[in-house]
């Protein structure tokens, strides 16, 4: 049943990703400043790619290289990518209320939770949401938290999950397989 669920999720995302049309609402989340956390963190990743920077990045993707071409295709309908990742050396140094404040925004109309993962063993929570408006997907949000790290990814615009999945194996994007000898 869950295999069917996974296939349905992919099909839904593929279908919803087909066209970018007029935006009824912005899929961009308001991300906290996380002031003072950088000093406590052992690793910080802050990525803010607005439409201008995304356009600039896309110009430096080489269409002759297959992996660059795949990235170009994957980001074709995207208007912004925002990432915040903090890793710490001790448990629960970060204010969970800040992470929860982002989750709260995802209970607004239009946002639908696609997947919820709870791992008791690793105390890991992963939530994936899509913003669906008039049968169009206008945004993606991923919130992943563990005792010593949290990651928030917010993608604005039309994202093709199938194309994102196809990036596997390139640029360190997961799912590594040994290639078969011919």
């Amino acid at each position: 049943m869950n295999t069917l669920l996974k296939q349905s999720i992919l099909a839904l995302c593929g279908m919803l990703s087909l066209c970018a049309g007029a935006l009824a609402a912005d899929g961009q989340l308001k991300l906290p400043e996380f002031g003072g956390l950088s000093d406590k963190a052992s690793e910080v990743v802050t990525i803010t790619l607005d439409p201008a920077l995304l356009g600039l990045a896309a110009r430096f993707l080489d269409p002759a290289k297959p992996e660059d071409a795949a990235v170009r295709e994957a980001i074709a309908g995207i208007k912004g990518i925002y990432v915040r990742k903090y890793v710490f050396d001790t448990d629960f140094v970060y204010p969970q209320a800040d992470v929860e404040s982002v989750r709260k925004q995802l209970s607004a109309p239009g946002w639908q939770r696609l997947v919820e993962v709870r791992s008791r063993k690793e105390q890991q929570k992963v939530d994936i949401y899509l913003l669906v408006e008039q049968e169009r997907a206008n945004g993606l949000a991923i919130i992943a938290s563990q005792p010593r790290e949290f990651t928030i990814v917010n993608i604005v615009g039309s994202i093709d999950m199938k194309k994102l999945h196809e990036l596997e194996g390139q640029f360190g994007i997961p799912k590594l397989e040994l290639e078969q000898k011919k």
Partner: protein
Amino acid sequence: MKASDTWSADELLTRARGGESSAFATLVRRYQRTVYSIALRMLSDRHRAEDLAQEVFLQLYRAIDSIDSETHLAFWLRKVAVNRAIDRMRQESRHDSEPLTDAVAVADESTEEDPLLHRRMAELVAQLPPAARAVVVLRYQEDLDPVDIASTLDMSINTVKSHLKRSLTLLRARVQGTTIVEDIR
């Protein structure tokens, strides 16, 4: 032994920049093992590895004026060798390895405890995709740390660590799987 063999790398660089062929030839002698080995582990073929290694030194000859120290030279050679190898692999779209007869020969010449295991490991590394293979070679052959690997391959450190973690997990699993099968035999 030639006189130039006793010169420091910085002295050789100065002389090579001044046009002394013997100095440049000595640099080739000193670094050929590094450059050739990177090419061999990436391309899995002695002939292609030698061809690539020659091209790297040819490129060094053209760019010698821009090399300002021994440290820079070592970094430059590794960077050019591995990135040229990756480009070549992608152009040829042949990520699978040819039969590693050369790698087998190398392993058999050694005095390691387990040449069969080492041969198997080398074969498995040769089957990794280009970027992951490059990270593993730079880490375990060249002994670079993730920061230097990131600079060499123009990747983020997180990407390097991701490649390392996943490649090791995969290699470990495959090696253990193979050992079990062979033990049963």
